[in-house]
């Protein structure tokens, strides 16, 4: 009966494993504290939060590409400062992918700790976040944060047209893009029924063509014209397609577009003065975060002067920019490099964003198909 002995041994091993995982899951008492902490003070101050986070030793982030708004530097900075390793999942995923991961991975150790999402997705899933107020909470304008700290706008920018001036003529208005020099060259950063950046690209085109934040149809018409002229290319613009030359003209956030300058020195950015469309991303903490202290410490880090200046170096506009300008903590060299914006920016309200996406759902495929 050798196999019985083997089974016994296997059973013991399994039992030991269960014990081990149980220890890993709820062994530390301070994490219980961190999981419900609504501010650093709740865990006994920032240094207690740092200690608890270091004990967890790990942070799961998702859909944060290193070439997006300088995230690479922020991730490295956080790792270097606290010695906490970062697991960056699905870097090119969408905001909805982040939410799907939160739901599917539940309370497992692989679930994302922190989220960074576009507006529509953020608002649709507020029951998944833990409220938390960072130490710099008061610097953030009230219109840019949820009052209990469920989600907070972190960085943003304006919709712009980036183009390789070595490959296409200079762009001075949207109408230029209909010209023959742009055959098969104009791209969006994603499908507007799927990606927030692309939706705003179409919206910007709409505002520039006589539409308004309430009416995206003029933008859809514009892309339909581009398509009829053969100027629209259905390739998703990425750092790679820009570098390779497949997408020499891209509608994208100015801070994302600006990063193409590293690969393509002739890359230029144009923001039409009659259509300045802004948007901010939103930071939130997963309420089931497997590393609750590290998650909160990450938020403290990205909303600190250091973190906010990292975004600024990535040419994104950090949410505390105004406050940091008045306190003199802003990286003024980086601020001076931001693409200039002349005019009054428009920010979509939730109702306007909903209206736009519903219109796109039924009209986009036909316009460019």
């Amino acid at each position, binding site marked *: 009966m050798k196999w019985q002995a083997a089974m016994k041994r296997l059973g013991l091993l399994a039992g030991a494993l269960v014990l081990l995982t149980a220890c890993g899951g709820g062994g530390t008492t301070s994490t219980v504290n961190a999981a419900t902490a609504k501010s650093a003070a709740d865990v006994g101050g920032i240094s207690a939060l740092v200690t608890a986070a270091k004990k967890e030793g790990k942070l799961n982030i998702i859909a944060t590409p290193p070439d997006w708004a300088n995230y690479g530097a922020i991730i490295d900075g956080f790792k270097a400062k606290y010695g906490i390793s970062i697991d960056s999942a699905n870097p090119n995923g969408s905001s909805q992918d982040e939410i799907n991961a939160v739901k599917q991975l539940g309370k497992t150790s692989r679930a994302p700790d922190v989220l960074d999402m576009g507006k529509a997705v953020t608002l649709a899933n507020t029951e998944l976040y833990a409220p938390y107020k960072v130490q710099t909470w008061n610097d953030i304008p009230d219109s840019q944060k949820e009052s209990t700290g469920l989600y907070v706008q972190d960085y943003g920018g304006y919709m712009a047209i980036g183009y390789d001036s070595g490959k296409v003529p200079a762009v001075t208005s949207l109408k230029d893009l209909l010209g023959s020099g742009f055959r098969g060259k104009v791209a969006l950063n994603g499908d507007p029924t799927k990606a927030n950046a692309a939706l705003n690209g179409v919206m910007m085109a709409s505002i520039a063509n006589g539409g308004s934040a309430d009416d995206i149809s003029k933008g859809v018409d514009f892309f339909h014209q581009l398509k009829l002229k053969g100027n629209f290319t259905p390739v998703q613009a990425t750092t790679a397609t820009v570098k390779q030359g497949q997408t020499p003209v891209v509608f994208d956030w100015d801070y994302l577009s600006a990063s193409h300058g590293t690969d393509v020195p002739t890359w230029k950015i144009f923001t039409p003065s009659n259509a300045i469309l802004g948007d901010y991303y939103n930071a939130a903490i997963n309420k089931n975060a497997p590393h609750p202290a590290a998650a909160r410490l990450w938020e403290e880090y990205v909303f600190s002067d250091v973190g906010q200046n990292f975004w600024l170096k990535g040419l994104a506009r950090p949410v505390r920019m105004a406050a940091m300008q008045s306190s003199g903590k802003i990286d003024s060299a980086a601020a001076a490099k931001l693409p200039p914006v002349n005019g009054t920016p428009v920010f979509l309200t939730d109702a306007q964003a909903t209206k736009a996406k519903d219109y796109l759902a039924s009209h986009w495929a036909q316009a460019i*198909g």
Partner: protein
Amino acid sequence: MRRPLGGGRRLATPQWIAAAPFFLYVGIFLLLPTAIVVGGAFVDSNGLSLSNFASMNQRFVINAFINSVVLSATSAIIGAVFGALLAYAVATGNPNGVFRRLVSSACGVLAQFGGVTLAFAFIATIGGAGFITLWLQQQGMNIYANGVWLYQLRGLVLVYTYFQIPLMVLVFLPALDGIRPQWREATESLGGGTWHYWRYIAGPLLAPAFFGGTLLLFANAFSAYATAAALINQGSIIASLLIANTLTSEVGLANPGIASALALVMVVLVAIVMVLYTVLQRRTSRWLQ
């Protein structure tokens, strides 16, 4: 002589044990997902409902299905015709020749050459900045003068044909091999010509295999996702892309219930096609094989 070890116990082991891993595999990777899709299709935020199907009665959803069917049918017919011709060329050649070995092993590889790798092969060669595209431009020819058609439905037909033709060769060749030279000789000794042979003997015998193969190609193209996803980023023009979009949209259009309903419609369509395929397959095996 020693009895084989464990020989006495064999009787006690149920025969299905050997097939258990197969059933486990099918259960986890086919039946369970299907059950989830069926279940999800009839549930919305208010519980049990048919609303997911109601929201499918929209122009863009119907168009996606029409596009899927057109794409699958076109690539299946092109694949079937050219695949059958190639298979015929192979079947009439030397059965141990280099040509046959070359074609059948190439087809074995290429029939499975789909997804991102295939899309990349096309993007790198005839994509907007592909090397052939650029070379042709230097010669004064612009294949994309009227828009980059590779990233549209037409482009997908071309790309799908690349794995459809080899697949047709693989499924049609055994049927051609089943045709016996004696039948032709019999036709001739009875005074029939080539026309009679094809019209009354080979044609009717091969037709079920040909149409069965075409249906298989249809189902193959209909369910393909990765190739299209890697090529086409705009508009979710075919059903499989639309499902992906309904699962991942970050602008608030994500709705897993509708995605399940769409998937269920695809499952039903493919099931119909596969039932027809099985019927034709049975007819084929009556004479050939």
